[in-house]
């Protein structure tokens, strides 16, 4: 099982999007160029001249964190509707125009944001800008298109959540760990909210959040920043800014004791998620705990040699798999997550005890300098490897910016990560891996009806 804090839901299959692995806030360090239009739209450009291609991403600071009960999932539904036509571009035409230009397009919604991306030959950037600017202001959500697309979204929920045991467990985990903060609702929305959603809910969302002053454009590739800024002025410049609604913090009250939830779903093996409430990065210069928590996640599960795999999967053989993760950069409350599947003959209770023993080891004995050094080596290498993908570079800049950090702080963040000491990791482990802020979700696997060998259940019908 793996989870990622950014995991949202996308319009089509696009692989793991924005999977911010532990410690991958490390970034490409080449220089960027920034320009702010009169209407508040920010444009960030990074040159990468290795190939004649370009990625253009338009980000909106509007994710499921901005939703209310009763209309959960509307951020994602609107993302789907963004391909369903504007005043001048008919439904489906967006995709056709990008495809005919040799491009690839997609979009995603996460808890913190919604993003639209296009990869094209550099000569086609004006087309991408024209279409993005058009749908930033002129979207038409028709009753007819909405009625069809909401069915598609419900199918997406069935595919990715209803019929996925681990997704159901994660969904219940979040709804248990958080009681008031909107992160408790799934990005795709509760099924009841989808069943009762109206076209007007999507329109209202669009009116509220889709505006140049709530958006960000990131372009990475074989471009001249000046030309990109001129293009942005031309296409996005005429759009009018909007008065944005106040965002209430909806802070989660302090947790006062361990919470447990059990989820029954068709599966063979049990599994568990343990999540500890944890801080997130607010001041990249002054904060230190989030960096130490990133390093802790790295020591536990940041590389092949990391502790949890080495001790619980390979050594004690108590788990088939274990994962640990923590994301320091997000708009809402943080969580230090650990998950795992017990080995045959072992129970989730035994796995939980084994994980607790590992945490106790960190809390009592700390971590070694050689472990930290190994995690730092991953950070250094990741900085280089990430430069091989312009899409990754654009995602990284955009995700940080839209979440409220300056991409200029990336170098600082990397330095701060490298400076984390063993004593600091020790301290955050002792402070945050405590029962009072722990939530545990367990999958109680339910056998499929009928014979155990599913393949034997088939009945052939000759046509």
């Amino acid at each position: 099982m793996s989870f990622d804090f950014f995991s949202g839901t996308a319009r089509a299959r696009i692989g793991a999007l924005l999977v911010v692995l532990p410690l991958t806030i490390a970034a490409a360090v080449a220089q960027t160029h920034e320009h702010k239009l009169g209407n508040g739209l920010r444009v960030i450009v990074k040159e990468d001249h290795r190939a004649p291609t370009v990625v253009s991403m338009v980000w909106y600071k509007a994710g499921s964190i901005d939703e209310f009960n009763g209309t959960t999932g509307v951020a994602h539904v609107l993302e789907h509707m963004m391909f369903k036509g504007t005043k001048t571009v008919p439904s489906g035409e967006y995709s056709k125009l990008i495809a005919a230009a040799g491009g690839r397009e997609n979009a995603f919604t996460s808890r913190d944001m919604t993003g639209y991306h296009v990869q094209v030959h550099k000569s086609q950037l004006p087309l991408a800008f024209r279409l993005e600017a058009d749908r930033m202001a002129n979207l038409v959500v028709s009753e007819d298109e909405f009625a069809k697309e909401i069915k598609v979204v419900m199918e997406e929920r069935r595919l990715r959540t209803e019929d996925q045991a681990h997704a159901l467990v994660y969904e219940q985990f979040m709804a248990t760990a958080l009681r008031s903060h909107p992160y408790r609702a799934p990005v795709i929305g509760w099924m009841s909210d989808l069943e009762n959603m109206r076209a007007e809910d999507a329109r209202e969302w669009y009116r509220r959040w889709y505006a140049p002053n709530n958006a960000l454009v990131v372009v990475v590739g074989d471009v001249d920043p000046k030309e990109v800024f001129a293009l942005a002025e031309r296409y996005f410049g005429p759009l009018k800014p909007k008065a944005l609604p106040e965002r209430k913090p909806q802070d989660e009250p302090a947790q006062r004791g361990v919470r447990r939830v059990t989820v029954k779903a068709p599966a063979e093996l049990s599994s568990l998620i343990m999540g500890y409430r944890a801080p997130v990065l607010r001041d990249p210069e002054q904060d230190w705990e989030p960096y130490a928590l990133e390093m802790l996640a790295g020591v536990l599960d940041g590389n092949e040699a990391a502790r949890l795999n080495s001790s619980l999967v390979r050594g004690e053989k108590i788990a088939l798999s274990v994962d640990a993760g923590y994301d320091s950069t997000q708009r809402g409350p943080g969580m230090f997550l650990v998950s795992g599947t017990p080995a045959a003959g072992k129970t989730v209770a035994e796995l939980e005890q084994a994980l607790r023993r590992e945490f106790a080891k960190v809390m009592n004995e700390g971590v070694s300098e050689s472990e930290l050094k190994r995690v730092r080596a991953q950070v250094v290498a990741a900085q280089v490897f990430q430069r091989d993908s312009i899409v990754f570079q654009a995602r990284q800049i955009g995700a940080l910016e839209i979440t409220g950090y300056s991409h200029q702080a990336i170098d600082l963040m990397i330095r701060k990560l490298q400076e984390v000491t063993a004593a600091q990791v020790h301290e955050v482990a002792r402070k945050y891996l405590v029962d009072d802020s722990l939530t545990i979700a367990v999958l109680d696997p339910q056998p499929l009806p009928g014979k155990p060998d599913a393949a034997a259940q088939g009945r052939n019908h000759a046509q």
Partner: protein
Amino acid sequence: MRNRRLHLWFALVVCVVSAPAYALLPIQHWQTGNGAQVYFVANRDLPMLDVSVDFPAGSAFGTRENSGLAALTQSLLKLGAGGLPEDEIARRMADVGAQLGGRFDSDRAGLSLRTLSSAEEMKEALSLLARILQRPEFPPAVLEREKARIIGAIKEADTKPEVIASRNFNALIYGNHPYGLRRSGEADTVAHLTREDLVDFYRRHYTADQAVVAIMGNVSRGEAEVIADQLTGELPRSGAPAAIPDVPSLTRAEARMIAHPAAQSHVLIGAPGIKRADPDYFPLFIGNYILGGGGFVSRVLEEVRQKRGLAYSAYSYFSPLKQRGPFVMGLQTRKDQAGEAVAVVRATLKDFVAQGPTADELEKAKQNISGGFPLRIDSNRKILDYLGVIGFYRLPLTYLDDFVPNVEKVTLADIRNAFARHVDPERLVTVIVGADEAALGAAK
């Protein structure tokens, strides 16, 4: 240098002038002293190196009795080699920030490495990879543990409707052909595998003269030659390559309905498709883009999703292999809609095979595939993958240079004829997992 050539080459393509005087990517190819095929592209833009080494050692080289042997052999390579236990290998790899990956499918098995190209890091990472590839130890305790983990994962997978669908689909289209074997193997076959089985499989299939070494990144030709020797020099030569038998065509249509408590039915429809070397590769590739490979501009998604809202994902693809890989159409939909969705997909295919695409569709498809070609090779990772494919399937070194001309010359008749030759809508396998009897009248 690569940059300039890319630019120039693209200019030629958009004018649709075929004057392939310039190599798009200067791929260097040679054979090592003991027969390994090496494919190399130098790129000095980033201080990093990607390497992969593949062998004809995929799941198709297994049997019904030892299914899972190929996958287990590959996964154990890095878990103890050349005197180093698994933890030591993992630690050393992590200490230099290197990433070890792998490739495994019906035909191929291999390992890949991404490392910084700084001297110390690269040396250590390559020396570990050389050890793993050439001196794996298959420690008995590790083998037993990994078997238990794989069996657990197989049992878990067997509860999932998409896995049940794909297992049954492959069994029906391939019968007793080894392409019908599940890549991971089965719980009972994996349980019986022994260390001797792995050692023997490794010895027979991980041989120098069958190895394909792909190297992409910040090294010179001289360095690349040393690396290729270092990674394969100790491997034995096999003489004759193992062969995968021909795939027979389906003799009749067949449908299988399987009960499952999931909310959706998972549908797979298809048949054996084509070999990688088939001369109809490009017509089918472009035709399939129009049929169901082009996402939101494809007919299948248009009919199933855009017009009717029946599914989130609906697609078709060919997956060409050494022998005939599968042609697959698939979707997932709420159970009570499965009958309707299957009928829509079948009608879409039938119409496409009978009529072929329209001239407009073909033009748009070419615009996308030719115009989007630069996106296929705009990173070291993507180029490494192409080197691996070119090497393994012995495609011409000019494969990438010829790609756009090969796309551009495809005609409407080529696509119609190719589909007529390779896809018979009256002889397809249909698998529906999570079947709702009442709704499936149409599918039977």
